[in-house]
């Protein structure tokens, strides 16, 4: 009860955080959507969106508004309540993890000592949303997409957790701020490069992006789990996906890239956030880069890669870390 009451005064702060969270979610979707299309364009030797605003900067706004203006379709045989619920369930929980991410040493919603757990717990709800959405569409492609999403995400959660765990062993805290503080002389990417690589691969699978975008594999499952979703509900899924990307990249930044640490900029107290966002978007750029480079893997290969490479490597890495922590 005491903890609960001690947290209560922060309710106001929570509201502020929620507003900021919404800003991040939508802003990130706009930035990422635009960056993705523009970068994809230039990788493919074409300009990408050009005509809507200067170099097409309003393209994503326009797309978003258009999706809002579309007719809401619920397929005849779909399970109506669940069908409507799924995109909300995919979208709503992404706000909470944003609360615990330390954007700089001063900008953070809450510094919970279970920060990492909050992120992981809320991320699992997304999975439930995909499952429900895939099932309730009453479409076989959706169902396949949902199945693939689940098995892939469950499998890749293991190396992801294990690689994060080896950092946790070094820092002895779940608090993200604590993790950032622990890498003050040297970033963990230097000490734990293997964990970083494993985490990087795992988040590509966790966010269902190419080359691991099997749940929405276009050429196989038309549009995967959101085949039947149109307009607003579809855009909620997309927003959720981009927000998830942001979250996992933030976690990577916090755990491996020193969070908001960087050369402090003059005359700006909150320069940490600039560094933080820079690192996050650098990772995101990497995700975009590989998306437009590689073909899609096959499902069994994806799983094999997880079980044969990632999990053993992360386990070995974890054991070595534990031993080293004990010895040093």
């Amino acid at each position: 009860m005491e903890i609960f009451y001690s947290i209560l005064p922060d309710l106001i702060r929570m509201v502020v955080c929620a507003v900021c969270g919404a800003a991040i979610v939508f802003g990130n979707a706009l930035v990422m959507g635009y960056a993705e299309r523009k970068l994809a364009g230039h990788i493919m030797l074409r300009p990408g969106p050009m005509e809507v605003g200067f170099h097409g900067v309003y393209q994503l706004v326009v797309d978003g508004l258009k999706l809002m203006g579309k007719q809401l379709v619920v397929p005849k045989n779909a399970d109506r309540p669940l069908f409507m619920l799924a995109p909300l369930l995919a979208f709503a929980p992404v706000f909470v993890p944003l609360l615990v991410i330390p954007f700089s040493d001063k900008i953070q919603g809450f510094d919970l000592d279970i920060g990492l757990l909050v992120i992981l717990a809320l991320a699992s709800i997304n999975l439930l949303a995909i499952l429900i959405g895939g099932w309730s569409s009453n479409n076989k492609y959706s169902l396949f997409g949902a199945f693939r999403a689940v098995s892939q995400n469950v499998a890749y959660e293991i190396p992801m957790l294990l690689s994060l765990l080896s950092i946790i062993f070094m820092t002895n805290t779940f608090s993200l701020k604590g993790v950032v503080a622990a890498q003050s002389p040297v970033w963990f990417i230097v000490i734990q490069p293997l964990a970083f690589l494993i985490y990087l691969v795992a988040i590509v699978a966790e966010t269902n992006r190419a080359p691991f975008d099997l749940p929405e594999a276009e050429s196989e499952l038309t549009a995967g789990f959101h085949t039947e979703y149109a307009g607003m509900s579809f855009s909620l899924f997309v927003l959720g996906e981009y927000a998830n990307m942001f979250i996992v990249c933030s976690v990577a930044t916090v755990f491996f890239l020193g969070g908001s640490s960087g050369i402090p900029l003059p005359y700006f107290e909150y320069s940490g956030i600039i560094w933080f966002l820079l690192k996050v978007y650098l990772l995101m750029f990497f995700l975009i880069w590989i998306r437009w480079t590689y073909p899609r893997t096959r499902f069994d290969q994806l799983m094999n890669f997880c079980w044969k490479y990632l999990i053993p490597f992360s386990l070995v890495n974890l054991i070595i870390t534990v031993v080293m922590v004990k010895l040093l």
Partner: protein
Amino acid sequence: MKSYFSELFTGAWSLILGLKVTIKALFTPIVTCQYPREKLEITPNYRGHIDLVKFADTGTHKCITCGSCMRDCPSDCIVVDGEKREGVKGKALTVFTLDFTKCSLCGACVEVCPTKALDYSNEYELAGYAREDFHYDLLKRVEERE
């Protein structure tokens, strides 16, 4: 065990090579022709729909209403009709319509024309709100043309 690691490393190397290609492409100039703003130079040999040629010397077309284009057209999209006029040898052209929506641009009509009165136009940016937009009256077009 050796193959386990060697596969890992060759695989990783191949992935890096791919990344190199795309990052290089990211910084190469685009190849796009940004259509309404700049237009590709369309080859003069481009085959658009057919048109009656306006000859400079006569100031009009040279169709003699023989109808061989109409007969040779594999998809029956040309209608040619003429009437007997006084003082003119043969028939004078009164109707020459092309239903471009059925045309397959095979060029049979152009090749069969004994007076070379037909030629391909260079129009390629056609779009319209009704299919009737593309039922051309070539006779009218040739008169309107400069």
